[in-house]
């Protein structure tokens, strides 16, 4: 039962953890552990937000909240993986799954750390809209932190990967610099062929490095695009899976009718809270 220890090791020493991910060290075990730990924390937080309504809602939210994060991950993961390998990434599908799970795990831990605060407001303030907006803020904050963590992990691994792939450039360049300067404009044939070789090597290195950095830039842009996609899929799935809170004076509903969207509801709640409705 070392699932939580894996998560703690991620939080304590992230650089070492990222390095292990890059080396594909015990990836499968880490995936299992992070899956279990994040599902547990998310279920706990889901139960707390569902408790604002009824015990049935509590049970329902305890399943729905981890489902929201984990299914979003499952939906978006293939896009990230296939686009990245198209642009030169050498990571495996398992490594990508682990990287995305890192983000979900961080979100789950942060949500769990907010649980006492949410519970406090649940007990002390009986205002549905306030509770709703408070949680939207918490979800937004934890989501941003998780995404930041994930972005950092991807950047670190990408840099290490590129550093490993780069061919050694010092030796051939040094050879060219150290070559004795010929007395006239005509190079001896031997030196000429050596210089040509060095130049060819240099050109090859430049081409290779240029291609790698171009691929790296593309992958970075793809990652940014993917994060937007992830947020969109997540918010839409969240809207599809609602209710998570359970509106006051309403009986338990497994699902609500799909009407409007997540963003319009946030603004509606905000206006109601500010008395503009």
């Amino acid at each position: 039962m070392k699932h939580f220890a894996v998560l703690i090791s991620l939080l304590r020493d992230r650089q070492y953890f990222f390095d292990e991910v890059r080396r594909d060290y015990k990836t499968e075990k880490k995936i299992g552990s992070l899956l279990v730990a994040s599902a547990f924390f998310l279920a706990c937080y889901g139960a707390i937000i569902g408790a604002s309504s009824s015990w049935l809602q509590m049970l329902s939210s305890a399943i729905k909240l981890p489902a929201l994060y984990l299914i979003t991950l499952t939906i978006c993961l293939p896009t990230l993986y296939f686009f990245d390998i198209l642009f030169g990434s050498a990571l495996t599908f398992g490594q990508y799954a682990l990287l995305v799970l890192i983000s979900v795990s961080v979100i789950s831990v942060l949500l769990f750390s907010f649980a006492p605060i949410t519970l406090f407001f649940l007990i002390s303030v009986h205002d549905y809209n306030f509770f709703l907006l408070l949680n939207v803020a918490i979800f937004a904050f934890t989501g941003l932190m998780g995404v930041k963590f994930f972005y950092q992990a991807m950047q670190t691994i990408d840099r290490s990967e590129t550093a490993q792939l780069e061919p050694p450039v010092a030796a051939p360049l040094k050879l060219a610099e150290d070559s004795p300067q010929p007395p006239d404009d005509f190079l001896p044939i031997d030196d000429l062929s050596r210089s040509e070789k060095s130049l060819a090597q240099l050109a090859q290195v430049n081409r290779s490095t240029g291609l790698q950095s171009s691929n790296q830039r593309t992958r970075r842009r793809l990652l940014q695009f993917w994060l937007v996609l992830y947020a969109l899929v997540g918010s839409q799935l969240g809207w599809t899976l609602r209710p998570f809170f359970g509106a006051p004076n309403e009986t338990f509903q497994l699902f609500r009718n799909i009407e409007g969207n997540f963003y319009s509801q946030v603004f509606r709640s905000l206006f109601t809270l500010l008395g503009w409705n």
Partner: protein
Amino acid sequence: MQLDLVDLRITPDQLEKLTGLDISETFMGRVYRPSVFRSVRRFLPFLITEGLTFALILIFCLPLGLVIGRGLGWLSNAGTTLIFFLFLLGFSVLLFAIWNLYMWQQGKRLKTLAHLLDEVDKHNDIIEAVDVMDQLSAVQSASIQLIDRSEVLQALAATRESLVNALMTEKIFRKYRQFMNRRQELFTNIESNLATLQTLQIDAQANEYGQLLNQALQIGLSLRQEIRQWQQLEEREK
């Protein structure tokens, strides 16, 4: 624990290197160890893991299934919703059963390793026992004397070497069934260590270490039996 005893232990890290798998009290690689059913201490983590696995299956199956069901219009009234909900629960149980069946199938292939790991546990338990006796003798200086400590350590060293050889052989056998260059050498080592153990056991005086030596010998005998089974299996395959 004294340094000589520490060196004789087979640690989880060493086990990981020797077997090429993640070894814990509950798992060997990704499958359950049969020993989880033999003690309550190990059965509890097994139960928790099973519970967590089922919970994860539910987390994926129930919401996704219900969303799909709603999209297809199968959740129009309470009756059909309940039936669909029960169907999804049944489907989750089926997936859980398939998962366990897969684990059981995988576990069958690692039967020998499971047995060796149990022997490693016994070996480590003996070392713990010797350590306890060392500590007791340090406290009650005269009443418990370490008469044959060196012999016990010699026996444990032989057992350790046998276990390491057996684990290496098992790994080689598991990974490279067609390519086993060191096989004969490892088998010979195990046989010679067993002979050492038998000699020590005969020489042992009737004292508190007699039983420990006997246990070490039992491990050695068990290993030899296992090796012979492999040899027979290989001869049959030839």
